[in-house]
């Protein structure tokens, strides 16, 4: 009968262990119900949101990759046909970079949505109201920044303002007209401005970043007085914000006084942007970007480029682009907002209000810093606007402005030689259209 015991014992051992075997817990991840529940996890979620903003598929690389190639400052000399599509304004809806950028931006907004929704529900006495406000404010700013990029690139984008709980949440997602998206951004920036403290932190959102982004938003919305007003608020705070000299100083050091918001990278969170610019063995990259010939000529012109000729360098008979990414550490910052842009926003806003002299003086601040002779007089608003646009092209050369500047001023087709007006918006990724039948593709794709 010993045998029977052996059988009984072994079977009972096995049965007891069954429940344990099936009840496994991940040690690598936490359950979503435990995600934002106290002070530390709220802080961590906000860090996660900045990480999402900084990822290579967004600010780290893809956003800058696409916007730079679409501009006339950079030409594509690489090897993957999908990347070339941006340079020749023939982007397919299946383009993988379009898809990855789209997904990355919405990933960032989803974290922001989680923070905005869940922070008020946290039951943790150590998380005081001031901190709750700041964290929500940062999330509002990040969400506004994301939607600003979305609406500028795609136009009719869906607005998702609630955190995702399950796949069912997708059923009501549909395109919103750009006007609605701009309203949404403005509202988020209003919230951010009121919630955020006025403490300078050039790597995270605060009241200054909210104001600076508002200046840009009103410029796009052609609300010249408000654009001027918000730009002035930053410019006048000279204790915190000053232009640095020479020009190259602003990118050769991190967090200069000129910087309003720059996405920071460290050894633990690197970007691969530099690999687009240089070929082996200079720094170990793919060499897909070279500055265009006319851009190089302008930079070399002392009356246009001035000290901004630092944006190029010559090696082995080839002219390469140059900026903080030249030494490919992957830790180079991505500039989102800086003081020079504020001057140029105000110059443009003033010019549009026919205050040419004031506009010109703002323009000359920037020219002066770049060691370019000042412009003494202009005849018409249009003439000044053209000069400001050229200045923006030089001053903000690799900072993702040029493509949008040409579009918002209605000059893109003429300058870039694009025959099809539909090509001024990117296609919504084909996969998104296939998945969600409520979503409409942009015309022409």
């Amino acid at each position, binding site marked *: 009968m010993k045998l029977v015991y052996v059988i009984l014992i072994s079977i009972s051992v096995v049965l007891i262990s069954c429940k344990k075997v099936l009840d496994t817990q*991940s040690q690598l991840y936490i359950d979503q119900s435990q995600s934002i529940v106290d002070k530390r996890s709220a802080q961590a979620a906000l*860090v*996660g949101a900045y990480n999402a903003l900084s990822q290579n598929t967004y600010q780290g690389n893809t956003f800058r990759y696409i916007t730079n190639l679409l501009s006339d400052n950079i030409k594509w000399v690489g090897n993957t046909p999908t990347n070339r599509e941006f340079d020749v304004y023939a982007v397919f809806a299946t383009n993988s970079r379009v898809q990855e950028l789209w997904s990355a931006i919405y990933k960032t907004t*989803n974290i922001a949505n989680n923070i905005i929704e869940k922070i008020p529900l946290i039951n943790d006495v150590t998380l005081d109201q001031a901190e709750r406000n700041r964290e929500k404010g940062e999330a509002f700013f990040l969400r506004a920044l994301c939607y600003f990029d979305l609406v500028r690139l795609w136009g009719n984008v869906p607005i998702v303002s609630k955190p995702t709980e399950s796949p069912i949440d997708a059923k009501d997602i549909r395109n919103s007209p750009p006007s609605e998206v701009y309203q949404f951004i403005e509202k988020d920036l209003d919230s951010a401005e009121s919630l955020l403290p006025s403490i300078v932190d050039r*790597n995270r959102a605060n009241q200054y970043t909210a104001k600076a982004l508002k200046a840009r938003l009103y410029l796009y919305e052609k609300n010249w007085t408000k654009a001027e007003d918000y730009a002035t608020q930053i410019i006048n705070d000279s204790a915190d914000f000053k232009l640095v000299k020479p020009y190259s100083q602003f990118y050769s050091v991190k967090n200069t006084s000129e910087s309003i918001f720059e996405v920071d990278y460290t050894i633990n969170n690197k970007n691969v942007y530099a690999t687009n610019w240089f070929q082996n063995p200079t720094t170990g990259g793919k060499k897909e970007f070279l500055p265009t010939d006319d851009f190089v000529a302008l930079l070399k012109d002392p009356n246009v480029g001035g000290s901004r000729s630092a944006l190029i360098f010559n090696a082995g008979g080839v002219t390469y682009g140059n900026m903080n990414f030249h030494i490919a550490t992957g830790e180079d910052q991505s500039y989102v907002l800086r003081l020079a842009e504020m001057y140029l926003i105000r110059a443009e806003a003033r010019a549009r209000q026919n205050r040419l002299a004031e506009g010109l003086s703002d323009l000359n601040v920037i020219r002066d810093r770049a060691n370019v002779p000042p412009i003494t007089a202009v005849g018409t608003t249009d003439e000044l606007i053209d000069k400001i646009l050229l200045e923006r092209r030089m001053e903000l050369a690799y900072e993702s402005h040029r493509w949008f500047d040409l579009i918002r001023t209605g000059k893109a087709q003429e300058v870039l030689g694009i025959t099809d007006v539909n090509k001024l918006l990117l296609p919504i990724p084909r996969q998104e259209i296939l998945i969600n039948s409520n979503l409409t593709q942009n015309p022409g794709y």
Partner: protein
Amino acid sequence: MNISAKRVTQYPSTPFFLAAFLFVASYAVAQNNTLRGKVIDEKTKSSLPGATVHIKGSTHEVVTNDNGEFTIVTAQHLPLTYSVTYVGYQTMEATQTDQGYFTISMIPTSNELKDVVVVGYGTQSRKNLASSVSSVNVSQIEDIPSASIDQLLQGKAPGVLTSANSPVPGSGIFLRVRGSTSINASNDPLYVVDGVFINNRSLQSVSTGGQVTDPLADLNPADIESIEILKDADATAIYGSRGANGVILITTKHGRLNSKSKVNIGYYYGSSKAPKLWTPLSGPEEALLQNETWINDGKPYATRPFRPKSEGGLGLPEEQPTYDRLGIIFQRAPTHNIDISTNGGDAKTSFYLGGNYFDQESIVKPDAFKRYSLRVNVDHQLREAIKIGASIDAVKTDRIKSPNNNVPYGAVNGALYTPSYLPLFNADGSYARPSLFENPIAAIKEVHFTDIGTRFTGNVYGEFAITKGLKLRTSWSIDFNESKEDNFFNSKTYIGQAPTNGSATSAITRNLTLINEQLLTYNKTINGIHAFAITAGNTVQKESFDVTSVTGIGFPTDGFSQITSSAIQTGTSSSSDAGLVSYFSRVNYVYNKKYSVDVNLRADASSRFGKDHQWGYFPAAGISWRAGQEDFVKALNIFSDLKFRASYGSTGNQNGIPDFASKGLWSGGNTYQDVSGIAPIQMANPDLKWETTRQADFGADAAFFSNRVNIGFDYYRKYTTNLLLQLPVSSQLGYTSIFANAGEMSNEGYELNISANLFQKEKFSWNVNLNISTNKNLIEKLPTPIIKTGVIILQQGHPLYSFYVHKQLGVDPQTGDVLFDDLNKDGKVTDADLQILGNAWPKWFGGLTNNFILFKNVDVQAAFNYSIGNDIWDNTRYRMGHGGSRNGVFAMLKEELNRWQKPGDITDVPRLTASGNNAAIIPSRFLEDGSYVRLRNLSVGYSLPKSIMAKWKMSTVRVYLSAINLLTITRYKGVDPEVNVSNGDQNVLGYDQAIAPQPRTFQAGVNVSF
């Protein structure tokens, strides 16, 4: 059934007589009868040690000794009927009527139709088998120098589709049994060695950019006794949740009771080489075409790139040098293999000890694979009712790896893609990387990448005979597998160059599986007509998978390679675990050896699914009818045997999805400014459940001409529902995909296996085995098409592995531009004009094996395998056929010389230009027919004659020569039609991207046993 029995008068030897006397003396009171005899082979008359002799109508059975002799002391009286069984022979019944020495002759079973086959949790009689099981003849694959067993299955079993991924020894291959049933869950079959599940998950943590290590390379092919492939639901349902992709049962060699210990030594040496390489343009040709592109693009002649150096150019085309880079990385690679084993047994204990050393270099430097393995199999009859045993397999593998496949910093890309006029070294003597790619010399000399694997598989079992026919078996197993990977890219490499200054990674990956299993079996035959076999059992399995890895960059000099010496160190670790609990049972009933019925049921619970969906139930049933036993069929006098089979059932799949696929998860480590943040990583799906495959199978087995010709035929249809799918979701939700059950897929096919003993003469025999299989795969339902990198699409209404490109109609003779098929007639080439133009599934595939024996001692084998009707996307040609758009970066192939040059030229290679659709749109001219027939193995062996062997006191000495991949017939333009760059994506097949060909190997070996 043939019965051969005769009486032989012979005097027993003295010791035997003495023993018998003592026996008789001590049991004289019981009136016992002592019977003696011998079991021999009918033809060779050699004795058969270890045969089981059973007295019919009693429980009494003995095993023959070293000399094939048996002694039975029984109370029963003559006449007695013996039933004798011996592996590889037909079961004999012989009746002894008179006292005396009794000899029983055994008839070997034909090679192809073994009488007993191994099935899940047991064995069954081949004759009454209702399910579809293929047995692989291990002797047919002995002469092929392959590191792992899965590669040896190629062309050997109907329904098994294989494709090698790379020529790197010990790396994974693509293997499917009866098609693919899943998109995101695993499509690999379940491997079971001696009844124990074997982990088939690669432990590679540090990517080499392509090939993945193959855990099956841990198993020494020489330790294998037999391989059975379970294919239909009746055979696989007992493995329930893991059976959907078929089951490969491997039985290792065991010793035999009462047999003299035998020692086997085998050695072979092989030499391998690439049979074919790519042909890039020479330097002058490359320069000529680059100039032509320049002119075609409307740029001035005066500034063409290859103009005289005095004019600031790179020199005239004819002045360009040609550097052969491919020759640098390819080599003639040696293989050494030594196997030493011994096996034997006494009355109670049997053993097998096996040792192996295998050392193979790759034809592409510097990869290599070494294996040291030891196996011990011991079985012991502890008490009359208790049997115990253990199997231990200890293996160490040493791999030298390199980024060899499709990665820019790999040797093959560096050697193949860099245009040939560009120099290998800079003026200062350093490695030149004039294009995007690594310098091939640096890739093979400056990269140090090792992977040391340790595998321990141990199993202990106890078997208890409770009552007659009822047995309990309990078994406990550990499968421990660890891999330690170390790499160092010094400062002279692409990855380690300044400012990195050397990069090293060290990773330890550990996969531990614990399995406990109880098995109750009950066998009963009533009145000799009703045979029941009942099996029931349970399994509990726990698996954990851990990775710890650390990377260091910034080494002081290249002399330091340990991470301690580096400036910046980063580390990571992760772990995951899963549990599986199962109950299973099978009832097998055979009536009068004619009709048989199987019923299987398995219940599995997996921790990977939502709480309410953890349990899955998988039933199956099969029936067979041995029509050959019916009198009316016998009367036809056509068949020596005939059987019909049918089965239906369901199996499941949960492998290959992440351990926590059903949960909503947030991850840590999302750093910003060196602070770790959290972010959502996976959307919850509490509804996640098993993927289920239902399969119907109809088969027939027929034998003709006294079993000399055997034909097996199967038709099957598999239908998979609730496909485990990484379903794309609206990215606007913040996630790109979710694990869900969505979609359905089917596989349908025919399998035919013919084996024939064409000649059976004393001086010449010829056996031939042909198998032909088809499989038609179809994605029946898929919510949204999934577009894979490049040209692969998964779309409802089309099979997996479909190719999706713009169709090239030709090249306009007037303009030299590619003419694309404009599907929607809008005059533009857009996404809407993409078409599915083929897929990687062969229409027919299989193998043909011929075995000859000449003059008794010479054996010859010629084994072919083939694949007909499959397409290959030749991305190597596409990349190199860039038509000028990637000049100076990607080399071009010789075929580019056929480009369009002037109006009127008829060619399919368009005008060279960097702009326009010729360069921008992927054309279908790189989609090719990948059909091939390959002489996989041609070998000639010579066995020394028996007379010499007897003198030397040896049992066999065989020497042989073989040639692997000697001949390939194909129209495929790449270097090898058997190609696949999987990059770990199982939904990619037939995608050729800078993959070196399968080697051609010449081999010489010797096998000795004594």
